[in-house]
């Protein structure tokens, strides 16, 4: 009997532990989340400034029509519903009723029209809203986007990073929206948090928006984004608990260190839409690299396992094609180039570069920032095996590199380019022949031209049926993977690092460039 009572007590204790355990995983109200930012944002208005450093605070300050979780499915946000017409030429948004900006003014379809216009005029990604000809506003809660052609990329573009809804009565006062003083102070948005203070090189402090249009959200009272530029200092701060969370961490040594730390989780989830890839770009118009066989030979000479395991320490994925492997449009059947030196040598012979005294030809590789130096050095070593002598050229800084590459004065370069959601936004620019623009970095600096590729991208850009669209992109990926204007190496080793107190960290496809209204802090 005594025994029985004892085990009963144990069982009760167990139940109560489990009970509180499951209770603790319910989101809790309140608390201040402290996150790290690696740079000072230029300002906080993503409508006129792209990039994830503005995106992180921007997505908290401004709401967008749609939001996304992990699965690339659009979900209602400021638009409670949306409808694409049969012909794909108009998209109707029904706005949440009674939603208000931080200054108490109602959010209307006028603001949607104004936001689209401002973004079209000022945002660098012109292809996002290029087909939008006008925005009609039949009533205060209905906005109809009229398109010149079907534009399926629009739905992804309607997320916080790319389409914040900004108030017309504030940013439409006649000042240039790019330099508007309220981009940095007294920011008026409609997102889950309001701006308290933005101090350059120090912090962005946000507080709960009490009139937020989503019921019961956000959970947190405050978010303090601390600007800590040194990655090692951020890692130490994450480890000792001074920071609760940091996103876009990409120094692999620190990631390895943090993975081993107690009470801290480091995950690569959440970067599929950002879609950052490291690749080896070729100047397809000059020298031996103009020959596709030479480029293929180079691909066969490079051992990606070395890059993935020795350089990235297993923290990055292999990239086999132009679309980030986390995107539903990525062709998972691309064969890639397994390392094969015989094949590489045969292709180089065939292309007319015979081996003389252990050497075939000289070429060079540029890189513009220190984090990709290991890849550049490795390419030099790898190509030496097949008789290609590579000179590694470091650039003093980004503008120096950008000038060299965008003026097509290079043979090869390591480059890092972002997909930015839909291929129309971040992928087409690299391969489209009408985007060969001297002086513009991240245009088609490879000067790659293929009319079939142009046709496929054009058709896929306007194809509303998702299966047909995927098929068009599949053919596109197979052609470029065969012709290799660039050879894709790896995804960036971006990681979100958070400690055990953080519930619901932002692991959707847009990482911290999404509303953090569901993030909460667990109390001990």
């Amino acid at each position, binding site marked *: 009997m005594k025994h029985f009572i004892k085990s009963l007590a144990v069982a009760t204790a167990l139940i109560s532990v489990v009970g509180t355990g499951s209770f603790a995983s319910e989101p809790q109200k309140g608390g*201040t989340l*402290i996150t790290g930012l690696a*740079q*000072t944002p*230029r*300002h906080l208005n993503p409508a006129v*400034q*792209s*990039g994830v*450093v503005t995106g992180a605070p921007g997505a908290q300050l401004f709401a967008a029509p749609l939001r996304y979780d992990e699965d690339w499915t659009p979900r209602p946000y400021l638009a409670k519903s949306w409808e694409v017409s049969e012909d794909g030429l108009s998209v109707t948004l029904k706005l949440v009723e009674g939603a208000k900006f931080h200054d108490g003014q109602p959010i209307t379809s006028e603001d949607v029209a104004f936001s689209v216009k401002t973004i079209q005029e000022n945002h*660098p*990604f*012109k292809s996002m809203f290029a087909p939008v000809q006008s925005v009609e506003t039949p009533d205060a809660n209905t906005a109809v986007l009229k398109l010149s052609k079907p534009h399926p990329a629009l739905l992804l573009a309607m997320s916080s990073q790319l389409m914040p809804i900004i108030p017309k009565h504030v940013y439409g006062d006649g000042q240039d929206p*790019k*330099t508007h003083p309220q981009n*940095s102070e007294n920011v008026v948005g409609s997102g889950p948090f309001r701006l308290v203070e933005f*101090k*350059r*090189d*120090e*912090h962005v*402090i946000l507080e709960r928006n009490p009139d937020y249009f989503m019921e019961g959200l956000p959970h947190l009272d405050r978010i*303090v984004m*601390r*600007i*800590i*530029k*040194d990655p*090692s*200092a*951020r890692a*130490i*701060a994450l*480890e*000792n608990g*001074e920071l609760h969370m940091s996103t876009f961490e990409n120094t692999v040594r620190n990631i390895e260190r943090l993975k081993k730390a107690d009470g801290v989780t480091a995950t690569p989830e959440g970067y599929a839409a950002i879609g950052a890839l490291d690749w080896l770009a070729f100047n397809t118009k000059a020298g031996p690299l103009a020959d596709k066989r030479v480029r293929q030979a180079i691909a066969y000479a490079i051992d990606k396992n070395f890059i993935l395991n020795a350089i990235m320490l297993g923290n990055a994925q292999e990239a086999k094609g132009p679309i980030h492997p986390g995107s539903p449009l990525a062709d998972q059947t691309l064969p890639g180039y397994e390392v094969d030196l015989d094949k590489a040598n045969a292709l180089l012979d065939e292309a007319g570069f015979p081996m003389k005294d252990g050497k075939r030809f000289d070429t060079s590789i540029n890189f513009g920032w220190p984090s990709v130096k290991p890849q550049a050095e490795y390419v030099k070593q790898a190509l030496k095996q097949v008789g290609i002598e590579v000179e590694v050229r470091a650039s*003093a*800084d*980004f*503008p*120096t*590199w*950008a*000038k*060299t590459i*965008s003026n097509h004065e290079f043979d090869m370069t390591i480059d890092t*380019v*972002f997909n*930015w959601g839909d291929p129309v936004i*971040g992928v087409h*620019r690299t391969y489209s022949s009408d985007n060969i*623009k001297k*002086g*513009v*970095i*991240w*245009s088609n600096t490879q000067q790659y031209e293929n009319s079939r590729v142009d046709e496929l991208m054009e058709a896929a850009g306007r194809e509303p049926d998702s299966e047909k669209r995927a098929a068009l992109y599949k053919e596109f990926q197979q052609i470029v993977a065969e012709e290799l204007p660039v050879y894709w190496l790896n995804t960036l080793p971006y990681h979100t690092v958070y400690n055990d107190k953080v519930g619901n960290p932002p692991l959707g496809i847009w990482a911290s460039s999404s509303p953090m209204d569901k993030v909460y802090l667990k109390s001990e």
Partner: protein
Amino acid sequence: MTILIPVAQRILYAILLLVAVLVLNFTMLHLAPGDIADTISQSMGGADADTMAQIRSDYGLDQPFLVQLGSYISRVLTFDLGYSYFYNQPVTTLIFEKLPATLLLVFTAQIVALIIGVVLGVISAKNPNGITSHFVTLLALFGYAAPVFWTGILLLIAFSLKIPLFPVAGMSDVTVEGGWFIRALDVAHHLVLPVVTLSTIFFALYSRLCRASMIEVLGSDYVRTAKAKGLSEFEITYKHALKNSLSPVVTLAGLQFSAVVSGAVLVETVFSWPGLGSLALQSIIARDTPTILGILFFSALVVIIGNLLTDFVLRLIDPRLRGRA
């Protein structure tokens, strides 16, 4: 008066020097390939040709070089340092926002380094071959040789992570609430590690220099006379010898004013100290020409003022220099 005449002459030279600094810096920055349009497009993940042309025309970068130089110099002469391309803020505002943090850091580090350097220098000079002297030499060499960022990171790992005494980053904790005293304590708490790091380089210089000049002075005739007079050891060392051996140290300390920007860049980066060094680094990376020029102008000004002050102080402590140009 004899103190002031050469000083006035120096001020005139200083102004000429400042203009030369401006022209030289502007020209050099102009010669570097690439510009702000590239870095803005970088921070935006790419931009099209129209956007880049727009940025260049917004900032007058499509104008001929001499026109840009002329308009810049004429604006600076009216004390207008222009607008930061990157932050769209007046450069003067940015600099004055950051200046107090840097001054606090650098002056505290300088004072700490001067005191420790001089004391250790004197101690080791009194017995140049003793164990203490060798230890001080070793410490000084280590302090001078170790890269600042490395020292900084090591201190962080030791005193923020393993023994969590001090915060990792920043100048204050935003969650701390209270009166000015509590806030000042909080800033002092954040100040410890950066000051220790920054003073390691300075202290090495001062202790070596002070040691050398003390050894020289301690061997001179008047010290022997002082000993013969029967003055106490303490009086000889600190009243007679130290005063005479201090002038090279003061000269050097004056020259180190340039470190207000240069030395602090690394320390400010490692400890996320929101000062001029961080701003300088950021604006160089971003090719934010007006901000770089503004900071360079400012540091030139600081160096020149520092040198003037050094002259002045030297003349005060050494009457022999008064009246010399």
